[in-house]
């Protein structure tokens, strides 16, 4: 009863404060609507409003020759010293004749990997040049599958078309000189310059070397080549879009390189095992073709699978972060954008409510209403509980109102009532509640932890902004690993998933994407509730002290 009265009072006083209302509602709505419109257009036209971002692509990548890096075991100083000429060896897989020399060249000589070319081609929406790869070595590229790709993408493998979604989004131009590109950005000719560094391929490629035991080992560079995305500060959104696209592609390369190094290691090592174990008689190699073939099995289509992912033209296509782009073409882009941007902005602004709602304990002390409460025959625990409950409810209501208002705005922009958050109301509510718990819990925690009022004012916003940056509320995406530190990430991710599951009925041809989006939000809820409850409990324990005079 008393607890409810206090909670109600918190809610009521908050919503009577005009400045707070402005900060809690007007600002986030305006911000998300502006960003939403910038990203999403009005939902009616076919070409996105943000389409044709002028991008300068500078590819400085020198490529990377595996042989340059490979560290042959002491016994074999160079491949010419082999007791046979690999080029003499020809065998067949299925109907295809394969020249072993060419195959080996793939690994040791002649093949220069150039990830920069691939990245540039993707950005420029050009077909990827296929030179001197497995495909030209005699294996039909369609035979090489790539299990890293999801079904939808796999189906399109081999049908690479330059008419990708990116083509609409970016108006990319190849530029040779990075300084020219940067100057172009400064002058407004380009919104963004993407500069692929010299070392890009080298750093993406695993480093192979033979150890003393004659085994092939590989190291991954800890850092993937840093592609510079140089954006005009006046076009932050364009910059953010391009940055996230580039990151998406580079991350895909990263996944491939891990698979590549593992596969090459096992393939080569098993070949060496066979040689050492005498299963293959090197001197009589030509006579022993079937054995060689058997042992070369790892180098056939299956073994090359990861490499296939890398070089199969159709497969490379997937490296463009395609899901959001496709989804944008889908239903209404504005609705989609509203979910991601609106929910992160809503949470970001709720963070301030969470902290400054609890901060009001200092105001209550200054205006002596806290003292008046303490003097009343009310146990402190009730006062604490009322205050916490009030804050939680305020944050929850704020999120609820913001999301509802965003629905309204989205509906108006789209021109018809659209419930952008998906159809699973129960789950949506649960996510909001879990988020409110985190947001409010953080407020309790921060105000409880801070020793003085000044510390709250100083550190509160810093913590909020950090969480928002990590969680992607400012639309530059950080690596997922990092983002996961922020509960904003988990919340926005949950909303996106829930919203996207709505597409299920609408578009069945998007099976792959829907399947992805359809994934449960169970993990999100678990993370959010866990964090929220933990913050609340620890926070309440800390905050208790703030009620002492």
């Amino acid at each position, binding site marked *: *009863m*008393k607890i409810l*009265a206090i909670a109600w*009072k918190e809610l*009521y*006083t908050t919503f*009577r*404060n005009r400045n707070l209302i402005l900060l809690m509602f007007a600002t986030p709505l305006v911000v998300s609507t502006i960003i939403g419109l910038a990203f999403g257009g009005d939902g009616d036209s076919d070409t996105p409003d943000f389409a044709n971002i002028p991008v300068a692509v500078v590819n400085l990548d020198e490529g990377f020759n595996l042989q340059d890096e490979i560290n042959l075991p002491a016994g074999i100083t160079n491949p010419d010293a082999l007791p046979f000429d690999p080029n003499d060896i020809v065998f067949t897989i299925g109907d295809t004749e394969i020249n072993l020399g060419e195959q080996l060249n793939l690994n040791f000589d002649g093949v220069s990997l150039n990830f920069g070319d691939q990245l540039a081609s993707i950005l420029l929406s050009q077909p990827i040049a296929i030179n001197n790869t497995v495909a030209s070595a005699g294996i039909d590229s369609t035979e090489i599958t790539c299990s890293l790709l999801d079904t939808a993408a796999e189906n399109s493998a081999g049908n690479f078309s330059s008419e990708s979604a990116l083509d609409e989004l970016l108006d990319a131009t190849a530029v040779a000189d990075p300084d020219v590109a940067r100057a172009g950005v400064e002058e407004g000719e380009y919104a963004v310059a993407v500069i692929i560094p010299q070392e890009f391929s080298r750093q993406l490629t695993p480093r192979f070397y033979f150890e003393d035991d004659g085994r092939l080992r590989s190291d991954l560079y800890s850092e993937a080549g840093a592609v510079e995305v140089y954006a005009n500060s006046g076009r932050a959104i364009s910059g953010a879009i391009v940055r996230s696209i580039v990151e998406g592609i580079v991350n895909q390369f990263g996944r491939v390189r891990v698979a590549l190094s593992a596969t090459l290691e096992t393939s080569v090592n098993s070949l060496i095992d066979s040689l050492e174990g005498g299963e293959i008689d090197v001197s009589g190699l030509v006579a022993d073709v079937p054995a060689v073939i058997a042992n070369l099995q790892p180098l056939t289509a299956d073994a090359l699978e990861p490499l296939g992912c890398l070089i199969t033209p159709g497969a490379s296509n997937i490296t463009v972060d395609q899901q959001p782009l496709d989804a944008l073409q889908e239903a209404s882009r504005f609705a989609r954008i509203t979910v991601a941007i609106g929910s992160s902005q809503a949470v970001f602004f709720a963070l301030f409510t969470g902290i400054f709602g609890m901060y009001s304990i200092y105001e209550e002390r200054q*205006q*002596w*209403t806290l*003292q*008046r*409460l*303490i*003097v*009343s*025959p*009310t*146990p402190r625990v009730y006062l604490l509980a009322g205050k916490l409950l009030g804050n939680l409810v305020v944050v929850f209501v704020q999120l609820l109102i913001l999301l509802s208002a965003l629905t309204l705005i989205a509906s108006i922009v789209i021109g018809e009532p659209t419930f952008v958050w998906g159809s699973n109301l129960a789950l949506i509510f649960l996510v909001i509640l879990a988020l409110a718990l985190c947001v409010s819990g953080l407020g309790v925690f921060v105000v409880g932890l801070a020793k003085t009022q000044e510390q709250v004012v100083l550190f509160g916003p810093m913590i909020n902004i950090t969480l928002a940056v990590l969680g992607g509320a400012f639309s530059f995406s950080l690596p997922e690993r990092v983002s996961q530190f922020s509960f904003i990430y988990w919340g926005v991710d949950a909303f996106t998933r829930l919203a996207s599951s709505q597409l299920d009925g609408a578009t069945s041809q998007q099976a792959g994407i829907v399947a992805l989006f359809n994934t449960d939000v169970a993990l999100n809820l678990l993370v959010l509730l866990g964090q929220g409850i933990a913050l609340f409990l620890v926070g309440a324990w800390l905050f208790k002290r703030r009620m002492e*005079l």
Partner: protein
Amino acid sequence: MQAMVQTQNLRKTYKHADGTSIEAVKGVDLEIHQGEIFSLLGPNGAGKTTTISMISGLLTPTTGDAVIGGYSITKQPLEAKRLMGFVPQEIALYPELSARQNLLFFGKMYAMGGKALNQRVDELLEFIDLADRQNNRIDTFSGGMKRRVNIAVGLLHRPQLIYMDEPTVGIDPQSRRRILDTVKQLRDEYGMTVLYTTHLMEEAQELSDRVGIMDHGAIIAMGTQGELTQQVGEEDRLEFTIGAQTVTDELIERIQNKATAVTRVLYNPPEQLSEEGSESTPARLIAFAKRGRTALPLIIQILDAAGIEIQSVAVREPDLEAVFLALTGRALRD
């Protein structure tokens, strides 16, 4: 008479962040009788608020305890708190809420509710004459109106005992008059016990049955007004406001010797007297005399002869101010 509030050796030491500490209340023993208005009179910083905070359960005493209507405030705080109403020195109201909402909210904190609460709120709004403004936000009220609501909140649950900490600070004379009348009404019509703190001698004088004079954290005198003034004897107090001329020690000595009835002369006390309207500290000369009216012409003569300009003269009979002055050598200051 039965004791409503009784304190034993109440002490409060505030520790500052820099390690130093200040003893704000130094062992206060009080007894407030049922149905009386008891005033704590003392200058700023005397420790009045700290004392009231301890006997209302707001602050934990460093040592000592207070018993309210039979309940120890430290051991049975909830029972003790039910007996008391509290009117803090500050306007302890939510500015965003209306007068009525404030009353309703705090009523709930005293476990009131429903019809009974609504009725009580109506009654109090009439009592403080704000029924017509009851739905306006507190932050639209004048200082005097806020003060009245502040008092009403303390009365919500019809407590037997009410603490009022300087309830007239910062308001106009008319509002002050109303409040002083209200306080008397509480005692006379409702039989309430009132603990009233003030730094204004006149208020204590007008209201109190008994007075405790506080200075530097200690009660330096306590009793009825008659008992207290008797402590300083029957001396009148002659207060001269004088010009900027220097008054020599020799001159003071002359006044003390020539004007036979004069027992003591204070020149330009460091603090100004707490008289209303007094502004920057003027030079003051205060003489204590058994028969003030006989001594007055003599003193005027001496000052005139010394070429000292006399701006005003006042003869005061023994009062609480005199008691404070006699006990501390200082005036109560504003």
